C-alpha cells in the first residue's frame, strides 16, 4: 500500500517539520517513507510544500502529481494544490486563515480552525502540530502514538515545547474525531 500527502503553506509555518515527523513516525512503524520538500528562495514568507510518501514496499516515485491528501495551511497553497488532489481524495485546511473553501465536490474537505486552537493553547507556533494531529486522525496513515514519539525525539533539545505540541496534536485529532468531516 502506498499513501501520499502534500503539506503546503508559506515558509515559517513549520511545514517541513510536519513532513519530517510524519516520515519518522512511518519509519518507526517499520514502513518505508520519503519526505520531499520544495520551497522558494526567500528566507521567510515564500511558498513552501513537502510531499510525504509512505509505503510497505520500496518507494518508487517520491513525487506525486495527484496527491491523495492535501494539508493546506493558507489560502494560496489551497488555490495552487487544491485542484490537483485526486478525485476521492482528502483536503485538510487551516480554516482560521482560509475563509473560502475550494469549489470541489469530488473530494473530502475538512476545515480545522488551527490558528484559533493554537492561540487557545497559548502558542501560535503549534498550528502545524494541530494540523498534523488532524491529518493522522483523518487518514490513520500512522498512529498518533508514533507521531507523538517522533515529535518528542525532534524536540529533545527544546523539551519545554514538548507538552504544548502534544496537546496540539491531540486537539487536532480530537477536532477531526468530533466534527462532521464534511465541515466547511
Amino acid at each position, binding site marked *: 500500500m502506498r499513501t501520499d500527502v502534500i503539506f503546503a503553506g508559506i515558509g515559517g509555518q513549520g511545514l517541513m517539520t510536519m513532513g519530517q515527523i510524519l516520515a519518522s513516525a512511518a519509519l518507526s512503524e517499520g514502513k518505508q517513507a520519503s519526505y520531499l520538500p520544495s520551497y522558494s*528562495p*526567500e*528566507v*521567510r*514568507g*515564500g511558498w513552501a510544500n513537502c510531499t510525504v510518501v509512505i509505503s510497505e514496499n520500496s518507494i518508487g516515485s517520491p513525487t506525486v502529481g495527484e496527491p491523495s491528501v492535501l494539508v493546506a495551511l493558507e489560502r494560496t497553497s489551497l488555490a495552487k494544490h487544491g485542484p490537483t488532489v485526486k478525485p476521492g481524495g482528502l483536503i485538510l485546511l487551516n480554516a482560521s486563515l482560509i475563509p473560502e473553501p475550494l469549489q470541489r465536490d469530488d473530494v473530502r474537505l475538512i476545515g480545522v480552525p488551527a490558528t484559533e486552537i493554537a492561540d487557545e493553547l497559548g502558542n501560535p507556533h503549534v498550528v502545524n502540530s494541530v494540523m498534523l494531529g488532524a491529518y493522522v486522525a483523518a487518514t490513520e496513515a500512522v498512529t498518533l502514538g508514533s507521531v507523538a514519539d517522533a515529535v518528542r525525539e525532534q524536540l529533545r533539545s527544546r523539551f519545554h515545547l514538548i507538552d504544548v505540541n502534544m496537546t496540539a496534536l491531540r486537539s487536532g485529532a480530537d477536532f477531526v474525531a468530533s466534527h462532521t468531516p464534511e465541515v466547511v
Partner: protein
Amino acid sequence: MPETQPPVEIPEGMEVVATRPRALTDVPFTYCPGCTHGTIHRLIAEVIDELGLDDRTVAIAPVGCAVWIYEFYALDAIQVPHGRAPAVGTGIKRASPDTMVFTYQGDGDLAGIGLAEVTHAAARGENLTCFFINNAVYGMTQGQMAPTTLPGQKTTTSPRGRDIARDGHPIRVCELLSTLDGATYVERVMVTDPKAIRHAKRAIRRAFEVQMEGRGFSLVEFLSICPTWWGKKPDEAVEWLRENMMPYYPLGVFKSAGQAGGEQAA
C-alpha cells in the same frame, strides 16, 4: 482587515512628511520582519528621488537576500552573478558613461566571492557607487559564516563560534579599500536609530554626488541586522550590533575626495 490603518483620506492642511519614494515600485519587500535591508532600500530610493536620477539610473542586483531589488526599484535593473556587480557596473559605465550605476551587495557577495572585483573597481576609480550591506552572515543561504562574521560568532558553518585560528579574521572592507588611490569616497554607517538613519542617507547622497560629478569610486558600508540568522528579535539584534559590530567596524568616513583617514562620525 483593511489595507491601511486608518483607511484614509488625508485632511486638508496636512503636508506629507514621509511617503513611499517614487523610485520604489509597490512590490512588497521579501525580507524577514525587521530586516534592515528594507530601510536601506528606502533611503537609496529617497536620494534618487531627491536628486532626480530615476530616469538615468541602473540598479545592479547581487545574489543574496537583496537579489530582488530589480523588482523593488522603479529603475532599469540587472541581476548579475554572485559578487560580480562591480565588474558588470564597469561594463555599463564604460558603454554608457552618463548612466548612474549603483550596486547593492551583501558581505558574502562583496567581501567574500566578489572581493577582487570591488577592489579592482576601486583601484580603477571606476565611476560608480557600491552599497555594501554588512550583516555578518550569508543571509539568503541560511546564515553561514561570512568574511565579516565576528570572532566567536555562531553561524551555521561556525557552530562553535568563529575561531580565529581556523577561520581567520573578519575583513574590514572600508579600511581595506580606502588604501587605494582610486577610491574617492568610502564611509561606514548604520541604520539602527533615527539619527543614524538620517546620517546614512546623507552618506548615500554624497556617494551619488561623487558619481554625478565624475569623481570616481564611492562605497557606503551599512552595518545591518539579520534577525533570522542571528536568532534574535529585531531589538535584540540592534543591541547585538551596537555591542559587537560597532567596536569591530567603527563608523566614519574612511576616504573623502581623495583624502584618506579614519575620521570617526560624530
